[in-house]
């Protein structure tokens, strides 16, 4: 995972695109049971990029994306932003430890981070609205399960880009 040599714009484009797609995925018209277990794609992608490319996708980017998510979600401004900033920080801090583990082990390590992120969201929600929606935490489990496929996909894309840009 230390091969962060490839050209900068290629990675920037990939980061932007993946974040954009993640946002679109979270805006899909989820409802019913799916809405309850809806995984946070944006959190996953942000976590991945903050671990892989902390220079390109840091806390600032995460915070900005969070603001966009807040606007789209009609939640209070800063709610998602706070969560994503914390998540990006965790990704940056823990990147070395996590990058030494295999993907499946990573998923186990990522789960507490996601749980933390979801918990922050729930706590903020509780502070603002006065009640706790525990079911919301289910999303963290599903998100952790999705860590493996999302990471694999992004790695594949990253390698494809790198090889194509080197050619």
């Amino acid at each position: 995972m230390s091969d962060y040599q490839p050209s900068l714009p290629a990675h920037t484009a990939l980061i932007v695109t993946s974040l954009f797609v993640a946002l679109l995925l979270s805006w899909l018209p989820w409802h019913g049971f799916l809405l309850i277990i809806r995984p946070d794609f944006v959190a996953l992608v942000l976590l991945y990029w903050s671990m892989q490319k902390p220079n390109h996708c840091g806390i600032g980017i995460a915070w900005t994306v969070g603001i966009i998510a807040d606007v789209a979600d009609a939640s209070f401004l800063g709610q998602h932003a706070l969560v994503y900033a914390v998540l990006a920080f965790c990704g940056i801090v823990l990147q070395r430890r996590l990058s030494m583990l295999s993907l499946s082990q990573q998923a186990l390590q990522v789960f507490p981070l996601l749980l933390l992120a979801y918990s922050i969201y729930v706590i903020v929600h509780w502070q603002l609205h006065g009640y706790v929606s525990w079911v919301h935490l289910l999303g963290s489990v599903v998100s952790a399960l999705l860590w493996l496929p999302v990471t694999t996909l992004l790695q594949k894309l990253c390698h494809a880009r790198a090889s194509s840009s080197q050619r």
Partner: protein
Amino acid sequence: MNSSSSARYSSNKFSPTVRLIFFGLLSLVLLFIDFQYKYLEFTRTKLSLFTNPLQQLVIMPGKLWQEVDNFFTIHNRLISSNAELRQLHTLDAAQLKQLEVLEADNQHLRSLLALQQRADYTMQLAEIIYTERNIVNRKVLLDKGALANVLTGQVVMDDNGIVGQVTRVYPRMSEVTLITDKNHTVPVQILRNGLRTLIFGSGDTGELILRYTSISADIQEGDLLVTSGIDGVYPVGLPVAKVTRVERDPAYPFARVLCTPIAGVDKQRQLLILSTLPTLPERPEATQEPTNRRSKNIKRGGK
């Protein structure tokens, strides 16, 4: 570990911790402002200008699918309802045909009524447009006049019997003297025994008088009086009145017989004018009355 990793990987001036604290505080401040003061609605609106189209875009496939689904559902429903309506239409068409027949029938009857095509008399329908203001003169004005071939002397009746006689004709109106007019006389016969007599108007609504009837005349209460056709003004056999009371006082030479007109003299609005006048040969100067009646030997009433 924090500092070393940040030093190695980050080209930013500030360490991740500092940045986290900064952005975390920023978020909290934003949250507080947004929750407490609602100052950020403008920013939110501006940002949603960018996010809204994207959200719409994401929702679109689902919506499209729903619309397509809807389209086919509606299509199917339309087909079935169309078939249903077709069936209903054929049923209704049959009923409509019946209705048309009925209507034609009705039209025919109406035209019959309008033309007054009766076997013996031609009539035309007229409507009362004015009534006489003088209460003694029992007269009404009809909306048919000389232009509709109304002639003086024609008889006016309703569907029950005689109402009066046309006494004056204007181009678009005709004046009808009702049989209840004080100066109006109708030659009548008693239907029961053919007794000829004259009936006079009393000037009172709904009352007629048989004057100059001898005390011994065979008149009973409930006798029906019909036109006798004598004098040629009124056609024969049209009902006129019914005897309601007979007073025989020996002190007077004549009986007092009161009748009520059979026709709704003061009730109807539409009346019929008999167009044909019975044509009789000119009356000779002699006193003999030209009559083709066989009931000559029956006692004559009055006059």
